[in-house]
């Protein structure tokens, strides 16, 4: 695995005081906060900062990290010393395991020994699904890296693959609880919480259990009204466009949002699209309209 330079992540010297480390972390974590940052890599950066601060902000973990760092340069391959706790390294490690190393070390030192019965920690993770999965329900395969005890009682980081049923009718931000799928512990395992996130969809947009869709219409469909065929998350439907519709008109298809009790609605946002005037015939038609239809869209505007 690669040695990560947590000091560089926080932009501080190796000799920085705990107070300086805290200051540097707070400044950066604000700058890259995913809810306010305009930086494109805000999410990844926040993760890196949290990982670095989790180690350098804790005196015990920092000391262990410094110990480990002696003789290693950033990016260099390294093997942790054999006397490091009861760790056993499974194959196929990636850089995230570097962080797990310290997470686990801290836990072991604080709570190890004494025979204290402790339930394993709960794990929080996010799971991304598509909108159609919410309409129909699905099964997703997710991978988690968790410490697991082998038959000799040693702890090793293991990749665990889980197949998870996503029930029909889920909405963004909902939490799926999988009892007993968290960290192992002497008094039983913790739980796993999966936050449902929706992958961006080019056509449909979701707000709670309501779904929005932009539907392009021709000027005559909007002006004269009529039936149009619209493809929705639950299949193609025939929709009646009211005569005299303009761009931005919202049509509500009740109960065609995400299913549930009650189900959400599907909103169609009409967008009038003009045919291009690229042929003589099209130009002639526009000219006829201009001549024969008294219409000034800016009527009523002050000069």
């Amino acid at each position, binding site marked *: 695995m690669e040695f990560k330079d947590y000091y560089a992540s926080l932009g501080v010297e190796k000799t920085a005081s705990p107070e300086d480390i805290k200051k540097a972390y707070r400044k950066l974590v604000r700058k890259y906060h995913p*809810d306010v940052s305009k930086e494109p890599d805000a999410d990844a950066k926040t993760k890196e900062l949290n990982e670095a601060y989790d180690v350098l902000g804790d005196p015990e973990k920092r000391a262990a990290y410094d110990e480990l760092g002696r003789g290693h340069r950033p990016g260099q391959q390294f093997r942790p010393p054999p006397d490091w706790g009861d760790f056993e390294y499974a194959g196929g490690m990636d850089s995230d395991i570097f962080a797990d190393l310290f997470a686990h070390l801290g836990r072991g030192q604080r709570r190890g020994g004494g025979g204290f019965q402790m339930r394993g920690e709960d794990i929080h993770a996010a799971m991304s699904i598509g909108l159609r999965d919410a309409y129909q329900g699905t*099964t997703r395969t997710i991978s988690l890296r968790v410490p697991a005890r082998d038959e000799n009682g040693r702890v090793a980081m293991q990749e665990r693959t889980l197949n998870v049923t996503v029930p029909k009718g889920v909405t963004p*931000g909902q939490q799926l609880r999988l009892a007993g799928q968290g960290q192992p512990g002497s008094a039983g395992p913790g739980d796993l919480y999966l*936050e449902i996130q929706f992958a961006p969809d080019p056509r449909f947009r979701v707000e709670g259990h309501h779904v929005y869709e932009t539907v392009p219409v021709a000027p005559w469909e909007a002006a004269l009204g009529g039936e149009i065929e619209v493809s929705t998350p639950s299949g193609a439907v025939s929709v009646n466009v009211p005569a005299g519709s303009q761009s931005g008109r919202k049509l509500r298809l009740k109960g065609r949002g995400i299913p549930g009790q009650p189900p959400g609605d599907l909103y169609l946002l009409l967008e009038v699209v003009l045919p291009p005037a690229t042929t003589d015939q099209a130009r002639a038609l526009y000219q006829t309209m201009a001549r024969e239809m008294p219409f000034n869209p800016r009527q009523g505007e002050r000069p």
Partner: protein
Amino acid sequence: MNETDILTGVLLDDEALTLDDFARACAVEPDWVVRHVQAGALGGVHEVQIASWRFRSADLRRARALLAIERDFDANEELAALVADLVDEVRRLRTRLHVLGLPPD
């Protein structure tokens, strides 16, 4: 455990958490939860009896957001609640813009 098993989870909105389970899910003492509910920083609880308090998806997300702010900035709990309110409002407005087909900026 057989790793090819298909696991079925429970949505917190179908089966809400008790105070103890909720506190464990947030990795805090139940006192932390009680204090924040009573201060109005954590919502969704209308029962008078603490034993009948139940917590759903939105509460878990909210509690974890509050905790992150309090921890990362050693923030005063009232200020953390205000920041969480503002973040929620920004998210709500951004979602509004997005569903109406408008750019975020």
